[in-house]
């Protein structure tokens, strides 16, 4: 029971991170293309200025929760995915610093460079996150002691000797790139106005079409790489609500955006991300990290779970703390609600 609870609590925190920091990353990708002048670029980035580091906290809090609830998984996955994680850290550093510098200070000639770094780091982060999820779905060459180490690439095939990047995980990365860019575009339709808002709305449709294609391709590829993905769904047919949710939220994004209901379209995109991630989690449950070296090496929920005292202690403060945290998050978003670019003309 504790295992079930903590699995979903960690999953919720990961979804929280993807939904919230996801639009920061999407805005990062888009601002290079959508903003035509300095004022517009400033407005684009101000839409995430007050919230991005709070959004990144979900990654830290989720990582910490994973750490104490599933220490074996944390130790195994973090050391096994050593190289890509270090690259993710560098990208997070570059993104945070470049965004904050250009938001706060008059950077003169360096502005263009910072914008470029910010955009590129955001795009690469989306790809890495997507590829990371795909790595988990595909499985890794776990040894009997619960450890593994993956090179960045081998022969680009998801076989028994995989690398971080192969054709399957690259597809995963591209799905994330498109999904989060769309997510960012929808955020911009809420937070910006005038021509910028129009441009953001226009870019939604092509991104949306692309996302449908990639979603379908990734689902087929997942079935090919991991044929057991639907077993849980057949066992509990009611859970087919998840793929239905994916389709419904995709449809809602397009319809609501066309009607100009920006907030609702954005929420539909949140739902899409939720259903995709929850669907993937459910597809592997109760395995946390499948082994390509045979199922006996899988890191399963029961194998990775912390001791009962740890989990009981954790549940008490976690519920209290996350309730508080949600209150701050809601408070901040309500304080900064509405268009972020008011007053662009006056400067």
């Amino acid at each position, binding site marked *: 029971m504790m295992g079930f609870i903590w699995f979903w609590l960690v999953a919720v925190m990961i979804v929280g991170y993807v939904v919230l920091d996801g639009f920061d990353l999407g805005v990062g990708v888009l601002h290079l293309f959508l903003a035509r002048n300095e004022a517009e670029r400033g407005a684009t980035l101000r839409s995430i200025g007050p919230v991005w580091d709070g959004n990144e906290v979900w990654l830290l809090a989720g990582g910490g929760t994973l*750490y*104490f609830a599933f220490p074996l998984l944390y130790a195994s996955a973090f050391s096994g995915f*050593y190289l890509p*994680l270090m690259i993710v850290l560098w990208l997070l550093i570059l993104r945070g610093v470049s965004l904050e510098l250009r938001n706060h200070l008059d950077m003169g000639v360096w502005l263009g460079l910072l914008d470029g770094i910010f955009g590129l780091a955001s795009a690469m982060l989306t790809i890495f996150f997507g590829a990371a999820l795909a790595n988990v779905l595909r499985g890794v060459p776990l040894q009997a002691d619960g450890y593994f180490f993956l090179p960045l690439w081998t022969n680009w095939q998801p076989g028994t000797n995989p690398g971080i990047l192969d054709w399957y995980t690259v597809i995963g990365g591209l799905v994330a790139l498109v999904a989060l860019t769309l997510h960012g575009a929808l955020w911009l339709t809420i937070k910006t106005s005038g021509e910028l808002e129009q441009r953001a709305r226009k870019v939604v449709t092509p991104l949306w079409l692309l996302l449908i294609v990639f979603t379908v391709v990734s689902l087929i590829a997942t079935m090919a790489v991991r044929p057991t993905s639907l077993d849980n769904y057949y066992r509990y047919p009611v859970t087919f609500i998840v793929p239905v949710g994916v389709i419904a939220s995709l449809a809602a994004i397009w319809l609501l955006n066309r009607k100009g209901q920006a907030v609702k379209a954005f929420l539909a995109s949140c739902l899409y991300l939720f259903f995709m991630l929850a669907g993937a989690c459910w597809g592997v449950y109760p395995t946390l990290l499948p082994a390509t070296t045979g199922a006996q090496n899988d890191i399963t929920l029961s194998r990775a779970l912390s001791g009962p005292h740890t989990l009981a202690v954790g549940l008490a403060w976690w519920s209290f703390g996350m309730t508080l945290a949600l209150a701050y998050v809601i*408070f901040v978003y309500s304080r900064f609600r509405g268009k972020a670019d008011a007053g662009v003309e006056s400067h």
Partner: protein
Amino acid sequence: MTAELIHRLHFAFTVTFHYLFPQLTMGLALLIVVLKTVALKTGNEEWDRAARFWGKIFGINFVFGVVTGIPMEFEFGTNWARFSRLSGGVIGQPLAMEGVFSFFLESAFLGLFLYGEKRLSKTLHWFSAVMVFVGSWISGFFIIVTDAWMQHPVAYAHMPNGQYEVLSFWQLLLNPWALLQYAHNMTGAVVTASFVMAATGAFYLLEGRFTECGCDYGHIFLKVGVIAGLISTILIIFPTGDLHGKYVARNQPASIAAMEGLFKTEAGAGIVLVGQPNEETGQIDNPIVVNDVLSFLIYGTTKAEVKGLDQFPRDQWPTTLPLLYYAYHIMAGLGTYFVLLMIGAALMLWRGRLYSSRWMLWALLISFPLPYIANTAGWMTAEIGRQPWLIYGLMRTSEGFSSTVSASNGLFTLLGFMGLYALLGLLFTVLVYREISHGPEPKAVEAVHAD
């Protein structure tokens, strides 16, 4: 280079660089609350602008602290997997609590503090400054709890699979080691912030800035910096440093012997002020010693016996012993200088001579990097002093690093961090210097911007 050494250097380098930022943000958060409180009570706009100026410095610092802090949590898993696997059930908790209880709070209210002044009432803006302070100090607490458990493990059980688990939430948080270390460490953060603020004030006065427009930022910064500096430099020695030292002596006797360079057990042990420990001969070369002082400092009597390194088997001596000894002496020496400097500055402030004394202003200005060195040396004392243990008495450092991550891969990313952090360090210095030379907004400019 062995994998163990690389992984130690990896963590040591990234955490040392990281802690250059939080020590200022935590201390500055308190001083900003002071500035905002005076502004709120007196309605004096100048103090509000002073707070806004330090808010900008805080903001830059905060971002550098955040981006260099994320790697720290990751490195527990990436570089110290075997340690994390066994101890994650315990130390993962305070690390997760930091995110849940502190970072959400801090980031939420920092957003309001930096971006929301026009959208909030004066009281609510003051409140957000207070919440940023609370958030950053909670964050420090959870990190100290994590470290304290490695220094002095409490409230744990050893499970059959080798993992440790928490038995009591409150005992974990109220670990006596954590409380003492927290008090000492947070005082250290206030020392850094007060030196930085006082130095900035001294800089403005020496340059003759902000004297014409009738706003005395130099005076404000010196006043707050010197008063906070006087209080914190006293507190860092007594009682926080004193109590913490005594607790270390009781619980990690080999560490204190190595810190003090005490090779032989002595009754009425003296304190070494200067000298180089020689591990081969078991002596201090070129020593200047004050008799009986060490016994007095630890046990309150000049005759007490203090255990020397000769009481401990060689494999329990802290590794890199001379570095530990120097780190400790640098910390203690600088701490003594700080309190003398601040007493002098405070006396001159009281007599009304500080603002015109160029030599004292110069002394304050050039002393600002020293608390960074002292804080770093203090942490090196704590962490090297714990060696050869990763969890004191339970797990050796050689048993904790990731065995699947080779020395070569570790070196690759260590070099990557060094390059990136060199760049960040330069960038940070340029940015903060620009902010400081620009200074708080004088009144005239303020009027134009108030649209």
